[in-house]
C-alpha cells in the first residue's frame, strides 16, 4: 500500500494515499466537486477550472484535478467564493453554448447541463437565440459523424481521446481566442481528414458537440410507411450494453427486452446480426483455408470492423491484399435481407427497409459504401447506434424496465456461441479458429481458445492444426494497430491470421455504445463487464461453432449454393480502396 498523507478537507481529516489528486481524494470520500474536462488518464490538462478549490487559504483557487495532496494540506471545497467562481465560469460557458436540448443527442446525460442545473445558472449573458452563428459551427459532411462547435465547451477531451486511442490525431484546436473551434484542420470534413470513425471522441465529449449522424427521424418515418417492410438486425454487443441507458448496471444482458422494444417500435421483422456473424465465419474460414492451401497472401486480416478497414485503407493501403474480402456481418446480413429473405417474405427488395442496430458509428459510413448493394439499392438503409436506439425507446415513452422479454421472430435469428463473442476483441479469431480447426482436422475438439481473450492490446498464439503451426494474433485500438503493422514490416515471424478491431476491447466498447460518464469511467471496468455478458452467452450455448448453425446450413443449401460463383462473391464479398487524408484541394 502506498504511503498515506493527512489532509484536512472541509474541516475533517482524512488519510489519503500519496500521489492522489485532490479531486480523487474528495470523490473517494464522497465529497462532490464539479468537473467538466477531467477524464481519467485521457485528458488531464485542467482547462475548465470548474473543479477549483481553496488550498491552505491561498488567494488563488487551485484546480482539484491537477493538484496533488500533500501532508498537512488544508482544502476547502465549498464556500461562497468558490460557488460564485464556479457559477461565473459556467455562466461564461453557457453564454457561448447553443441550447437545443430538446433535440440534443445528450438530452438526458449531458455533463454540462447537469452542472448548469446544479449551480442554477441563469444564462444572463446570452439569450436562447442570441448565440452568434459561427461559420465553423457544423461540420456534418461525413456519413458517420457530426461536430457541432456551437455546443463545444472547448474542454479538449475529444482531442486527447483521438490522440490516445487512435494515435491519429484528427482533431485539434483551430484558431485562437473567441474564434477557437475544435475539429480537423481548416474545417475539412471528417471524411477528408483521415478519421476512421471509431467514435472515441463522441464518448469523451461532455456535451452534444460530437455525435453520430442522427437517423432516428428516417427510421420513424419508415416504420410508419405502409408500403415498406422494415427488417431490423441487431449486432451481438447491443444486448450487453443497451440496459445501461435504462439504469441497469454495466454488464446486464437485456436481449429479450431489446427485441420486445424493437417490436413495440413497429419493425416488421427482426433478425440477429449474430446469424450473419456465423455466416461470416464460414466465408472467412473458407477464404483463410484457401489462402493457406493455395499460397494466397498471408497473413490474412479480418474485415469485420469498419473502423479498422478505414484505418488500413487510409494509413497502410499497401496491405489491402491481406484484408479478407468478406463483408462484415452487418453487410452480409443486409445482403441476405434484401435478397433471400425478401424473396421468402415475398416482398420486392425495393420495398424493404433494412435497419441495423450497431455499437458503432463507422457502420453508418460502411453501409453507404459503393459496392454494398445492387440494382440501385443499398443493403443496409438505416444504421442506428445503441445510443440512438435508446433515445428512440425513451422518446416513444416505452417503459423498458417493465416490458416482457421477447424472442425475435424469423429463423435468421438463430445463432451459435461463436457469433456472440464477435462483439469482443479476440472473439472473431476464436470463432474462426473453432470452425477452421475443424475444417482442417475433423478430429479437432478444441472449443475455447483462451489465449486470444483478454484486454492486452496485442495477443499472440500458435495452434497446431493438421500438421501445421498456425500463428495468429489479435490486435485492437489504433495505437496497437500501428505498432503491430510497423512490427510486421521487420519481423521474421510468419503470421497467418490476424484479427483487428478499430476500438479497444472491440465492439463492446464501440463508438456507438452508451456513454459512460467521466466519473463512472474511473470506477467501472466497462469493457470487462460488457464482455462477460457475451462470454457467458457463449459458454451457455449448445452450439458453439458457426458452421453448425442450422439456419446458416439451410441458407447455403437453399440459396447460396445455387448461385453462380460471381453472384455469390458479389453478395458476400467486397473491395477496398486506398485513400489519403486531406486529398481535396480547396482554394
Amino acid at each position: 500500500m502506498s504511503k498515506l498523507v493527512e489532509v484536512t478537507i472541509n474541516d475533517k481529516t482524512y488519510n489519503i494515499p500519496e500521489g492522489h489528486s485532490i479531486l480523487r481524494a474528495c470523490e473517494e470520500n464522497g465529497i462532490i466537486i464539479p468537473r467538466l474536462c477531467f477524464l481519467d488518464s485521457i485528458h488531464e490538462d485542467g482547462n475548465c477550472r470548474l473543479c477549483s478549490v481553496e488550498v491552505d487559504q491561498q488567494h488563488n483557487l487551485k484546480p482539484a484535478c491537477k493538484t496533488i495532496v500533500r501532508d498537512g494540506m488544508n482544502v476547502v471545497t465549498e464556500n461562497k467564493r468558490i460557488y460564485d467562481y464556479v457559477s461565473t465560469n459556467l455562466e461564461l460557458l453557457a453564454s457561448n453554448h447553443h441550447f437545443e436540448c430538446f433535440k440534443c443527442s445528450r438530452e438526458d446525460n449531458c455533463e454540462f447541463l447537469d452542472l448548469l442545473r446544479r449551480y442554477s445558472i441563469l444564462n444572463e449573458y446570452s439569450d436562447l437565440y442570441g448565440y452568434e452563428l459561427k461559420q465553423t459551427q457544423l461540420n456534418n459532411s461525413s456519413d458517420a459523424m457530426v461536430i457541432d462547435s456551437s455546443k463545444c465547451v472547448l474542454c479538449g477531451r475529444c482531442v486527447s481521446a483521438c490522440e490516445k486511442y487512435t494515435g491519429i490525431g484528427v482533431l485539434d484546436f483551430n484558431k485562437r481566442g473567441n474564434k477557437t473551434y475544435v475539429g480537423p484542420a481548416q474545417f475539412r470534413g471528417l471524411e477528408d481528414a483521415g478519421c476512421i470513425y471509431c467514435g472515441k471522441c463522441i464518448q469523451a465529449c461532455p456535451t452534444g458537440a460530437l455525435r453520430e449522424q442522427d437517423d432516428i427521424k428516417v427510421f420513424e418515418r419508415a416504420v410508419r410507411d405502409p408500403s415498406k417492410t422494415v427488417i431490423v438486425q441487431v449486432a451481438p454487443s447491443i444486448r450487453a450494453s443497451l440496459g445501461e441507458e435504462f439504469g441497469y448496471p454495466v454488464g446486464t444482458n437485456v436481449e429479450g427486452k431489446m427485441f420486445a422494444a424493437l417490436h413495440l417500435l413497429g419493425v416488421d421483422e427482426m433478425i440477429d446480426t449474430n446469424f450473419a456473424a456465423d455466416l461470416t465465419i464460414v466465408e472467412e474460414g473458407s477464404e483463410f483455408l484457401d489462402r493457406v492451401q493455395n499460397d494466397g497472401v498471408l497473413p490474412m486480416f479480418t474485415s469485420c470492423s469498419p473502423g479498422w478497414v478505414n484505418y488500413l485503407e487510409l494509413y497502410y493501403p499497401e496491405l489491402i491484399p491481406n484484408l479478407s474480402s468478406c463483408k462484415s456481418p452487418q453487410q452480409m446480413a443486409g445482403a441476405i435481407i434484401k435478397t433471400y429473405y425478401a424473396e421468402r417474405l415475398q416482398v420486392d427488395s425495393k420495398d424493404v427497409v433494412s435497419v441495423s442496430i450497431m455499437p458503432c458509428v463507422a457502420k453508418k459510413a460502411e453501409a453507404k459504401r459503393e459496392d454494398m448493394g445492387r440494382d440501385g439499392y443499398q443493403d443496409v438503409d438505416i444504421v442506428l447506434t445503441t445510443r440512438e436506439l435508446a433515445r428512440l425507446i425513451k422518446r416513444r415513452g416505452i417503459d423498458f424496465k417493465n416490458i416482457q422479454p421477447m424472442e425475435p421472430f424469423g429463423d435468421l435469428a438463430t445463432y451459435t456461441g461463436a457469433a456472440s463473442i464477435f462483439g469482443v476483441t479476440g472473439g472473431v479469431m476464436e470463432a474462426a479458429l473453432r470452425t477452421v480447426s475443424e475444417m482442417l482436422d475433423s478430429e479437432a475438439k478444441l472449443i475455447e481458445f483462451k489465449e486470444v481473450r483478454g484486454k492486452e492490446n496485442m495477443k499472440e498464439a500458435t495452434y497446431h492444426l493438421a500438421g501445421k503451426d498456425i500463428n495468429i494474433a489479435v490486435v485492437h485500438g489504433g495505437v496497437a494497430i500501428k505498432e503491430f503493422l510497423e512490427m510486421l514490416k521487420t519481423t521474421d515471424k510468419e503470421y497467418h491470421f490476424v484479427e483487428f478491431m478499430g476500438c479497444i476491447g472491440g465492439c463492446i466498447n464501440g463508438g456507438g455504445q452508451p456513454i459512460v460518464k467521466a466519473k463512472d469511467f474511473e470506477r467501472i471496468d466497462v469493457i470487462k463487464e460488457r464482455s462477460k455478458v457475451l462470454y457467458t452467452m457463449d459458454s451457455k450455448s449448445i452450439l458453439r461453432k458457426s458452421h453448425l448453425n442450422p439456419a446458416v446450413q439451410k441458407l447455403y443449401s437453399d440459396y447460396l449454393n445455387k448461385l453462380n460463383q460471381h453472384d455469390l462473391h458479389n453478395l458476400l464479398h467486397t473491395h477496398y480502396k486506398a485513400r489519403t487524408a486531406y486529398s481535396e484541394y480547396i482554394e
Partner: protein
Amino acid sequence: MRIEKRLDQEKETLLYSALHKVKNSPGPLMPTLQEAQRIFGCVPIEVQKIISYELNESIAKINGVVTFYSQFSLKPKGKNSISVCLGTACYVKGSQGILDAFEDELKIKNGETTKDGKYTLEATRCIGACGLAPVFSVNERIYGRANVQKAKNILKTNPETKES
C-alpha cells in the same frame, strides 16, 4: 474532383533541407513552420502535409499551431504588412478608427491582402507599446501616437517594399 496542388519544386527542396536540419532536435515544429512561412510566404495544407509526414505530427495539430500564431498564415501575405493594435490602451485611444481608415484606403478588410499583393492589413493585440498608444506598424517599423491622418499619410509616402 480531386486536384493535388503542386508545390514549387525549388521551394519544396528548400523545405526538405530545412526539415533535415531540425528533424532530430527537440521541438522541431516551430522552427520548421517559421522556415516554411519564410520559404512559401504561407503554410497551406499542402505544406502542412509534408511537415506532418516528416515530423510525425498530425495535420490537425500543425494547423492548430499555424492558425494560433499570427506570424503564420494559410494564404500568402502581401509584400508589406500593416498591423493596427486593438489592445486595450490603443483601442481606448481610438485605434479602431485607424483600422477603419486603412480598410477604406486599401479597400480591403481586416485580415485581407490587396489585389496587387502589396499590403496585408491585420489587427493585433497589445504589442507592448502602450505608452505610445495608439500604435500601428508597417513591416517592422512602429508608428506611435498615431491618428487617421498619419495613417493615410503613410500610405501616400508609399513605404518602400520589404526586401524579400
